[in-house]
């Protein structure tokens, strides 16, 4: 009913008390403050850079870097490689340690998390002792301990631990024989790839058949046969076209073989052990979130404890576990930047460390580094939201 019909006018609100007007004023004020701050910061920065004669822009990307990197997945030389190449080396090193760390931390975290719920008193106590201790000690301290306290305290080169003159362990790293392919190894690789494709196809076929007929196929054995046994047979048929090059211990260094630098090992151990403690808590919370009735119902249908855990409890727990688990993965990726403290050449160490010091272009370098981590974070959280939409309970 409008006010004209009833003859009562709504009380007149002063303009400055109108919520819509106020909201516009607040927003304009906020925008003005932010624009002012950004403008001030930019002009100051330009002023500073001009006084210090520091170049700006991304021209340094194609300049020769002129420094060495101790571990590189792609060819890198101090004399010809550019800062751009150094960036990719750092990014790949970060991704390498993060990927391996995620695998190790997940395995260890699930073991510890399930152990904390074990009926075995000792096992659950030890698991919770692990979680409480590791979670409450800073990661940086743990990394320094692994690096300086453990790996750097290993014997020197001359007194290396060695197994059969093929595997060496000393304070400069861990050396294992490197497999080198001879002609003909390509067949093995080909069969391996074909095996993976075939086993994926077999998995989908088996699943569809199970849906239609209820008959189950031995997916595990067929997969193992296709992916491992078949390439192995081809390897033997081709006359083992591969040999191992052992590391050679010289007087001053070890040449040949695959070298694992102690910085990498310390970072990998530290990250995995630290993140595993957090993953354990996530797993525990996830399993406890599945109602006890689910397991009891399974038992009453005659399903054994093993399959109950695998088919009933874990799939439901995963729905609770995955979102915090992915944020732990993100934490691990971000924490890998602590590499800078022990000198592992990751993105932060190479870029915000060496490149920043050499070029002095703080704004560009820090912006690039942050952009990389932001991209990783946003992509991961985007994937996570997709997964959540698929997995979310369909409510009535």
């Amino acid at each position, binding site marked *: 009913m409008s006010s004209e019909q009833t003859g009562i006018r709504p009380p007149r609100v002063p303009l400055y008390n109108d919520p819509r007007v106020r909201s516009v004023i607040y927003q304009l004020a906020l925008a003005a403050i932010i624009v002012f701050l950004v403008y001030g910061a930019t002009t*100051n920065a330009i002023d500073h850079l001009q006084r210090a004669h520091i170049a700006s822009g991304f021209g340094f990307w194609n300049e020769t870097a002129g420094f060495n990197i101790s571990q590189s997945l792609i060819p890198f030389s101090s004399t010809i490689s550019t800062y751009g190449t150094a960036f990719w080396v750092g990014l790949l090193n970060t991704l390498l340690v993060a990927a391996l760390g995620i695998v190790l931390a997940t395995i260890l975290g699930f073991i510890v998390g399930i152990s904390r719920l074990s009926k075995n008193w*000792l096992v659950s106590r030890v698991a919770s002792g692990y979680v409480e201790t590791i979670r409450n000690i800073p990661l940086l*301290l743990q990394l320094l301990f692994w690096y300086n306290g453990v790996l750097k305290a290993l014997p020197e080169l001359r007194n290396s631990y060695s197994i059969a003159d093929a595997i060496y362990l000393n304070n400069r790293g861990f050396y294992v024989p490197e497999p080198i392919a001879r002609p003909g190894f390509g067949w093995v690789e080909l069969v391996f790839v074909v095996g993976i494709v075939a086993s994926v196809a077999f998995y989908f076929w088996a699943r569809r058949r199970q849906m239609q007929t209820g008959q189950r196929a031995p997916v595990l054995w067929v997969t193992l046969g296709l992916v491992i046994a078949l390439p192995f047979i081809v390897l033997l048929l081709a006359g083992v076209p591969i040999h191992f090059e052992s590391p050679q211990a010289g007087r001053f260094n070890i040449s040949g073989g695959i070298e694992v630098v102690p910085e990498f090992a310390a970072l990998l151990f530290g990250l995995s052990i630290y993140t595993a403690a957090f993953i354990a808590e996530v797993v525990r919370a996830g399993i406890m979130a599945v109602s006890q009735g689910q397991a009891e119902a399974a038992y009453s249908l005659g399903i054994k404890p093993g399959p109950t855990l695998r088919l009933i409890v874990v799939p439901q727990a995963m729905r609770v576990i995955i979102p915090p688990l992915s944020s732990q993965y993100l934490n691990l990726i971000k924490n890998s930047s602590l590499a800078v403290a022990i000198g592992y050449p990751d993105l932060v160490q190479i870029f*915000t460390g060496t490149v920043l010091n050499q070029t002095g272009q703080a704004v560009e370098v*820090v912006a690039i580094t942050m952009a990389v981590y*932001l991209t990783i974070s946003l992509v991961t959280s985007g994937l996570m939201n997709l997964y959540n939409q698929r997995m979310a309970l369909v409510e009535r």
Partner: protein
Amino acid sequence: MTMAEGELAISELHFVRDQHLAAQPAPIRMTGAIGWVRANLLSTPANILLTVVVLLLTIWVVWELLDFLILDAVWTGADREACLMSTQHREVGACWPFVWERLPYFIYGSYPIPERWRVDVFFVLLAVGVAWLLWLHAPRRGLGALYFFVVLPIVSYILLHGFAAIGLPVVDTVLWGGVLVTIVVATVGIVVSLPIGILLALGRRSHMPTVRFFSTLFIEFVRGVPLITVLFMASVMLPLFVPQEFEPDKLLRALVGIALFASAYMAEVVRAGLQAIPKGQYEGAMAVGLGYTPMMRLIVLPQALRITIPNIVNTYIGLFKDTTLVTIIGIFDLLHTIEVARIDPKWATPVTSTTGYAVAAMFYLVFCYGMSRYARATEARLRKGDKR
């Protein structure tokens, strides 16, 4: 034969028992300590194996720790000679004389010795503030909050930095170090991040698109990058962004970085609390005619913060651990002083590093574990209220 006759007949039969047997005690293997061990440690063969393996592992770890920290440790000495295997003619564990000698450095850094009483006073004032806030039955807790969030920062600044007019010589922050810096960085992060975090959380849930946009942008940006890059930004980019004549000192830059970082995380924690408040509370507040600010201040935030306390404390634990990262940008916190002391030629031995790290680990473990116990106790206390 009728029913009654039949019953009579049965009661007269002497081989039918008409009293219950006294219950026998349960088999000794099922009760008491033995029963507990059988049920909890040795129920199946796999369990027995697991128990034995874990037991051996535990004994090994505990023994190694005990061995290093106490049994093999060196307790007295003047320099590195005391902690060398060659002079002791035995396995050498922790090098405690190193810690005794360097303890003042670990606590105060290079703070001038005649002025160190000021740091002690600061520690006492801080302890009083923390106790006042955490002890539930303390008198005048509102006053305690005022003391902690307003009075303490000002007094501490005057006390630690100095104020020539009242006779306290200025101590440059370059000289600050050790536990002092760790505590200062953590406290500033804690004191600053809560109010900013609340504002950001409210901003992210605001109906004004500009406010929401900037709050979300800030939170997602800071949470998406590692703390170390935020610290790098604060230490190398902040001086560029302010006018030439106003060069912030190094510790202040680190504090800004830590405070921004902690605020973004705190904002998400508070937002979760705000989301847990039923809509009826907002509607009820509006129905009695409260505006936005009184509604938030009197109705929503008190409830939201109350249920968020455990998560806030968990964020503080993370913040406390993260303060170690200021080491990387050259601030002398506890970890940095240990890093410096452990390579000092006077004490450098194979065991010095591990001894120093053990001290730092114990320090952080005690503080963080204490905080996590407090969070858990609070959680239990709040849940008690919900159960009713």
